[in-house]
């Protein structure tokens, strides 16, 4: 079966606008799901819904942000359907008390340390940090994707960064101790 010219054109635009983000979208899904099969399923459903409502996408706007919104929506609905707790519980107030001290910005952070430290943060902080620093979405786009107010995005980013620095500093201290122990054993 061949596609009618109008649909052929629409497919071509979708292929040009949306599909180049497939790899990034998958990385995001994989990071959040931690399971390849679930990540593939999530990305597939996201792109199917994106294709279906592609006529609603405004050309010239950020297509990746639009896809991320759909992905988060699908993910959120799936979690609800599975009866899991909401992705975003009232974590902000609880965590606000937990980050009274912000350590200095660590230097010479390895990729492995960074990902390990990020993975140790509560999910709501990981979400905003990844969407802001990796996906480079604006605060407004993040707020839309996660269905939370911009103020919440900003406060989660602040606290998330502080927690990340704490985690990285802790990892740095552990690495220093290991090095000291190793050099003590050598001498």
């Amino acid at each position, binding site marked *: *079966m*061949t*596609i*009618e010219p109008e*649909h*052929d054109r629409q*497919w071509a635009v*979708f292929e040009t606008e949306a*599909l180049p983000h*497939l*790899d*990034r979208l*998958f*990385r995001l899904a*994989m*990071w959040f799901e931690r399971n390849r099969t679930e990540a*593939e399923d999530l*990305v*597939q*459903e996201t*792109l*199917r*819904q994106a*294709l*279906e*409502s592609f006529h*609603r996408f405004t050309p010239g706007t950020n297509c990746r942000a639009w896809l991320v*919104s*759909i992905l988060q*929506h699908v993910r959120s*609905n*799936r979690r*609800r*359907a599975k*009866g899991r707790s909401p992705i975003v519980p009232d974590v902000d107030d609880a965590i606000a008390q937990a980050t009274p001290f912000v350590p200095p*910005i*660590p*230097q010479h*952070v390895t*990729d*492995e340390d*960074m*990902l390990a430290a*990020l993975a140790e943060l509560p999910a709501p902080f990981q979400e905003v*940090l*990844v969407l*802001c*620093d*990796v996906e*480079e979405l*604006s*605060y407004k786009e993040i707020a839309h994707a996660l*269905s939370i107010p911009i103020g919440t995005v*900003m406060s989660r*980013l*602040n606290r998330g*960064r502080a927690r*990340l*620095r704490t985690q*990285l500093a802790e990892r740095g201290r552990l690495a220093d101790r290991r090095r000291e122990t190793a050099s003590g054993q050598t001498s």
Partner: protein
Amino acid sequence: MMDCRDVRQHADAYLSNEVLVETRLDIMRHLEGCPACRADLEQRQALRTTMRRAFLATPDLEMRASFGDAIRQTLREDAVRRAATPAARWRWAAAAVGVLAVAASLFLVVGWDTSRLVALAREAWGDHRNCAIAFHLQEKPISLEEASWTFDPAFAHLQTTPGTTVSTPVGDALITERHSCVFAGRRYAHLVMRFRGELVSLLVAQDDAGPMASAIRMVTLARGHVRMVHVDATDGAALFRTAAHMGVIVGSVPDSDLEALADALVQPVSNALAL
């Protein structure tokens, strides 16, 4: 004039280009004369760069090439299927116009009640488009369980009934989402399905008609029976009535498919809502 504390407070928003122009200029002025804040900013930027590089480079998050190929193929096939749908939709629309003409005399008798059904179908289409397809609802959907505590206890039974797959003579419908949402002031239990290559919604709301309207509805829409109505030339809806609820099925599939799906759903949904 900003001091170091002000600058550090705005530093990350500055790097994200999320500060007002005036604030940006103030920060830039401060940075010109403050090497410590410049170093702080560079370190913050370095952390971001590391996170981005690590995230985008780690092989643990890499997509399988075969998945990329497969999904492209699947989406392309979806596009072909969808391309075939509008023509069919117009044929069914033409048929529906004929059916509507024949039904005109009946409409005179129960017209006002039918118009209520059409209004309900129109709202259901609105919810389907704004919730299932475009995600533009003003109020965030909640789980059926939560809705059952606050709004309608019967919604809890739709968490598991019908099951994930609904068999119809024209193919299976796969339920992909269940939640409760609000559109145009009406609260629904919303089940989103993939059916015949399209997203289709089953929306269940409390039957809020008074006794007189219900009596007339017995003629217009007998309990347990499916009734097709049209919102316009293309948007059809299959409606059914249970003891205390109305069910509406909408989606861009031919009327006969909507009706087949409604026939398959009316009994299990009615039974579940009556529990």
